Every structure is written in structure tokens, then in C-alpha cells.
């Protein structure tokens, strides 16, 4: 067993884990944060995407013990209390989901895209950047729309403009 300490959604957690424990398993089974999903378990589908030190990674292909000292954000860490994160709100508004299984990973990947590429994203960029996230229901159309709108809504001052 190995001791690991990390910050998950702003809270410090320490646990004694089997070194085999994947980050996805750690957040789901040890912390009961089941919003992070495991789809393919082979680092292809992206349902397990979380942020480690501000970068989107596939938590099914990361050891929990490797994240010692890291700051991890899962889908549960995005919303501000009852108020959805702008990217979550955009997925709801544009119906960027059907069964919803891929949605947590999609949203975590989408926030990462905005962090890297800014608030104005064209369709081509979004489709390319979502390469590592697979949805088997929707055909991506509404997901792309949601990401575009969510990106704009994440811009500083966007909420104020929307409220006017």
C-alpha cells in the first residue's frame, strides 16, 4: 500500500491505496465521486477525463499514486453550489447529450479546450479537439454547439452581458 495525498475539488484527501489504483477508480470508489465515468478503460473514449493540475487527462490511464501532491478537478468540482458551470449550462441548453454517459468527460475536455484555445472556438477546432472523447448517441452536433456556446459563456464578463 502507498500513501497518496492530493487535492480533489479543493479538498485535501489522503488515502492508503494499492499502487495499482487508477485515478478513475480512486475518485469513484474511494471518494465516491461517481460523476467520472469509465467507458472503454483503454484511454480512447474520454469518459474518464478529469483535470490534474489544470490539464485534462484520462484518469483511467493515470495511477492515483502518481497524482501525489496534485490538484485534481472532477465534474463534481465545476459547479458553484447549485449554479451550474457555464459549460454545464451550455450542454443543458443545447442538449449536448443523449444518454449522458460521455457528458462528464466531454465537459471536462471542453473546459480544457477553452483554457488552451480561448473563448472563441470555431466548429472545426472543437471537432478536432474532441478527438479523444467518444459519444455513441448524438453524432456530436449538439455537443459542438454546446462547447461553442459554453466557451463564449466562460469569457470574463459574459454573464453580465447575458444578463443585460
Amino acid at each position, binding site marked *: 500500500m502507498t500513501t497518496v495525498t492530493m487535492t480533489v475539488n479543493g479538498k485535501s484527501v489522503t488515502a492508503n491505496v494499492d*499502487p495499482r489504483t487508477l485515478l478513475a477508480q480512486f475518485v469513484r470508489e474511494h471518494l465516491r465521486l461517481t460523476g467520472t465515468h469509465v467507458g472503454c478503460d483503454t484511454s480512447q473514449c*474520454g469518459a474518464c477525463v478529469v483535470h490534474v493540475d489544470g490539464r*485534462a487527462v484520462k484518469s483511467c490511464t493515470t495511477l492515483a*499514486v502518481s497524482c501525489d501532491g496534485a490538484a485534481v478537478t472532477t465534474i463534481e468540482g465545476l459547479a458553484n453550489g447549485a449554479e451550474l458551470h457555464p459549460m454545464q449550462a451550455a450542454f443543458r441548453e443545447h442538449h449536448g447529450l443523449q444518454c449522458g454517459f460521455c457528458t462528464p468527460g466531454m465537459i471536462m475536455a471542453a473546459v480544457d479546450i477553452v483554457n*488552451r484555445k480561448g473563448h472563441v472556438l470555431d466548429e472545426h477546432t472543437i471537432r478536432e479537439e474532441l478527438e*479523444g472523447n467518444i459519444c455513441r448517441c448524438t453524432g456530436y452536433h449538439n455537443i459542438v454547439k454546446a462547447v461553442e456556446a459554453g466557451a463564449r459563456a466562460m469569457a470574463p464578463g459574459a454573464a453580465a452581458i447575458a444578463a443585460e
Partner: protein
Amino acid sequence: MYAFTYQRAKTVRQAAGLLAKNADAKLLAGGQTLLPTMKQRLASPSAVIDLGKVEGLAGIERKGRTVVIGAMTKHSDVATSAIVREAIPALAALADGIGDPAVRNRGTIGGSVANNDPSADYPAACLALGATIVTNKRKIPADAFFQGMFATALDEGEIIVKIAFPAASKASYAKFPNPASRYAMVGVFVAKRGSDVRVAVTGASSDGVFRWSAAEEALRARFNPKSLEGVSAKADGMIADIHGSAEYRAHLVGVMTKRAVTAALGK
């Protein structure tokens, strides 16, 4: 995944020490190949030595006409590095095409080069640019480093510390990715420096990355895609699998080389 002992190294020296004590141990860099392999039980090291906390292994610097990239530098950092984009834009573009964004945020150049997957991208860049692989023990020229599928010149207990890429006057990487895995079905890195031209091919040969000397010769005479007309790669020894036959890959080698040369000329 089978059980293993987890060891966290703080220095390269310490990692080398741990590795020397256990021939069955594996180094963990970004884990984007090692962990899936362990999950499939294709690898079952008794110990995993994590390089994630080793100081000084990540980073990019320019030394004259050479770009030096630390072994633990992530693909996304190579792709977005101002230094790499300015000095060797083809290398930044290659890094930007590995896997997907989340994989690029974790996978490292040292891990990719040490693994020498026959379909990995970085080995082609190393070979075509004439990179030097710097380990904790010595400096290995790329020409001597890659020794066949998953085989390298690395000795037991030897750890890649950094890789030095001399800039080229013209360079480009053309990749035909497998639509599902994004691994190169065929990837060709072409580099021109003075009158020298090097063409490195990945994804195609069952011996792993190789230099295509016939194309190099033709391109040294004149660096133009037209020089490649009538030059064809042999299907002998090419990978044949459900994604493509040996003949198909051999044909793709020619096509991707022409595309790489065209792109290197800025056309």
C-alpha cells in the same frame, strides 16, 4: 493489472539505482503506453519506478541551432513551445498530432523514444533530424539508438535524460493516422540540412523506424517531390495487419514522403 511495488524516484541517480537492483522493474514516465499495457497484462513489472517527481527532467531550451528537450516533457508542451515552433516547427506539429489532447497532456517524449513503438511518431523525428539521445550514462546518436521493434540501444539501468534536436533548414512530418488509434499507419519525417537530406519512416516496417535511403538519394539530387517519381519502397518486411497490407503500407510510404517534401517546401 498485476500487483507491483511502487517506487517514487527524486533524482535520476536514485531511479537508476532502483532500476539496477531489479531487472524486472519498469520506469514510469507519462504512462500512456505502459499503463494500458499493464492493464492488458501484457506487461507485469514487479516494480514501477515513477519519474514524475524527478527534478530537472522536463523543459525545453535552445542551444544555438539545437533544441534540447527534457525526457519528461509532455507532448502538449512540445506542441505549444515557442522555442520548438520557431526552431523546428515540424517537430511541434508532430507532437500536436500524437494521440489526443488528454494523452498529449500526460505522454512524454522520453517515454515514447525509450519504448520505440514501431508506429510511434517521435522516433521518425529523432532519426530524420539526426537527434542525440542523452542518457544518464552517455550520448547516443539516433542512427545507433533505434534497433528494431521496441528495441533500443538503452542498456539496463540506462535512463533517457534529454534529447537534442539540431534544427534543419527544411523539415516536415506527414502522417497517415489510423482513424481509430491515431497511431501512424505510415509517418514520414523529411529533413534537409545543407545538401544532406534524411527521410525517416515510422509505422510501416516490422523492424520499426527506418531511414529510406533510396528516397534520400533522390532528394539529395533535387529536393522536390518530383524527384521521388519512380522511387518506391519495397513491401518486403512491411507491417501487414487488419488495417492494411504490406503492399498498401509500402505504397503509402511513397505517398507520405512526397507530401512531406511538398510541405517542407512550403507548397
